């Protein structure tokens, strides 16, 4: 069983839901990331989605675009992100880490080399926003060979047939994008999400994480009632942006948001 499957199974056995924060690696400075990851875990995060900075984050709204720009000022490359995962792993061999980003940095490194390095660093899953399953056959096969999970997005616009195809290519969990739009856009509609998650459950036994549009304790708690995992990004990244000039405060203050959500979800 992979670290992700293990984690989600344990939570299920306890009747709890996964809280999955997203942060962009290297934002606002490379030195902050690993400390922040540990603090997030201490505050109740179950899985960490670590964003790989990219110059052209087409699926992201302004909040995460700016996070990428801040990280790229320091030249945070994919190999640097993998080093951060290694460093994190030296103190935490429990919490799953999922890399989230765009395909081109992986292409530049080469699939082989990326897989080997990522596995060695202790990466558990990879979500590539601009790689749909039909283009990702080789990519998924390589991930599997290296014991990493392939995580794909399901959108409100995905047809039943596409949902099937996506679930067949996925392992670990599937990520339901709760709104039509980029990251950080409009607030979600919990009833609509509930309906779609139920439809996904007809197709797959994989746990379903829901992200986009979760902003506060209330929306986190509401989504946790209908999904297996709650993915939170832009609110955290916004806080990081606010504190960009006092990076020492970032781990504590960002983790405090996660702590509040954890309590609301477990209440």
């Amino acid at each position, binding site marked *: 069983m992979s670290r992700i499957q293990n984690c989600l199974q344990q939570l299920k056995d306890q009747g709890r839901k996964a809280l999955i924060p997203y942060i962009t690696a290297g934002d606002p400075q490379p030195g902050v990331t690993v400390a922040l990851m540990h603090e997030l875990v201490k505050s109740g995060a179950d899985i960490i989605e670590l964003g790989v900075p990219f110059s*052209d984050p*087409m699926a*992201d709204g302004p909040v995460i675009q700016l996070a990428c720009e801040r990280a790229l000022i320091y030249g945070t490359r994919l190999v640097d992100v993998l080093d951060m995962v290694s460093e994190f792993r030296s103190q935490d061999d429990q919490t799953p880490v999922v890399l989230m980003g765009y395909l081109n940095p992986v292409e530049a*490194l080469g699939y082989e080399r990326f897989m080997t390095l990522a596995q060695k660093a202790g990466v558990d899953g990879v979500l590539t*926003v601009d790689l749909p399953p*039909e283009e990702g056959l080789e990519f998924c096969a390589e991930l599997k060979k290296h014991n990493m999970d392939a995580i794909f*997005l399901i959108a409100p616009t995905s047809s039943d047939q596409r949902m099937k195809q996506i679930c067949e290519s996925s392992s670990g969990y599937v990520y339901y*994008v709760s709104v*039509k739009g*980029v990251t950080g856009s409009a607030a979600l509609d919990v009833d609509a999400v509930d309906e779609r998650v139920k439809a996904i459950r007809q197709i797959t036994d994989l746990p379903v994480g829901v992200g986009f549009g979760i902003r506060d304790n209330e929306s986190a708690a509401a989504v946790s009632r209908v999904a297996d995992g709650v993915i939170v990004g832009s609110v955290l990244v916004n806080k990081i942006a606010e504190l960009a000039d006092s990076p020492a405060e970032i781990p504590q203050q960002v983790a405090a948001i996660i702590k509040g959500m954890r309590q609301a979800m477990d209440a």
Partner: protein
Amino acid sequence: MPTKVDYKALMDLPDERGHFGPYGGCFASETLMSALQDLSELYEKLWRTPEFQREFDYDLAHYVGRPSPLYHAERLTKQVGGAQIYLKREDLNHTGAHKVNNTIGQALLAKHMGKPRIIAETGAGQHGVASATVAARLGLECVVYMGSEDIRRQALNVYRMKLLGAEVVAVDSGTKTLKDALNEAMRDWVTNVDNTFYIIGTAAGPHPYPKLVRDFQSIIGREAREQCQEMTGRLPDALVACVGGGSNAIGLFYPFIADEKVEIYGVEAGGYGIETGQHAAPLCDGRPGVLHGNRTYLMEDDSGQIAATHSVSAGLDYPGVGPEHAWLKDCGRANYVAINDDEALNAFRTLTRIEGIMPALESSHAIAYAMKLAATMSPDQNIVVNLSGRGDKDIHTVAEIDGIGI
């Protein structure tokens, strides 16, 4: 790299999932995948029907003003002293460039899909103008994304779009040029996919865009083929076109791909010179990667971040290129070369002064290369150059370079 390629088979590409060899494909976020598949299905169904062809041909004839002439540039030929230079006059189209061939086609698709709103990205503003134009004609809402650097460079076209009723949104992210405008248009589309048709302006993007843009633009090559045979009694010896994303070039090249004897040259923007790294020539000096929905040659750093590009012409200032060009390059069917800013400006002035035709700065790259090429050929050989657009929009840029305020 493929060894021996059947040129005729190249014309059957892309495959049904949009691949040209290892290039192309559909690398889009999941929210857009259904819309792209719907578009692909609709397009395959409609494109070959006589009704659609009739509608498209009618608009090209009566609204765009096609066929565009093939003009024998005798004075230019004489000055260069080599092959005969023929200009395919896309500058004479309504709105002043080849871009309108494509927007007419895509607007017809939007109409068939019942979408009330269109969006577009633009660099030089020509595609934005062509999109705003068809939107005005069909009564559609139109939003055009444009990098703030390009808004500065192409002020005339910005105002044209506004007069046509379009909203022009300045894009301030990244390098503030065409690639960032494309990112922003994609973000709009993800958000408004239900009511919005995205008119991509070049032969790039996720499948089916590279294919349908090529098909709509191929009218250029089909006409040129006939006109050249009529005027010279045979096919041309060489074709030359500038390559930004590659739509005017593939439009000219495609109908000649199987004609082995016709040499094909795509001209990229050499900026300050390939050796300086400050250019926009991914086929000459880039490597394969994935951006904006397709796998193709890109300008990027070692870690896969997209590089900033430079060209004096906004329409060529793009770090990627359409996937069909990437494959034509690898197959050895087409040659890709670069022309620097200075050489392009020189060609702009030359053509203006000795033929009375003011080319767009984009097209000036093709003219400059054709002049070099012609000089190495004999007077009984013929070159067809795609004069993709007219230069009115660039007068400010040239005046600025001349130190003249207008």
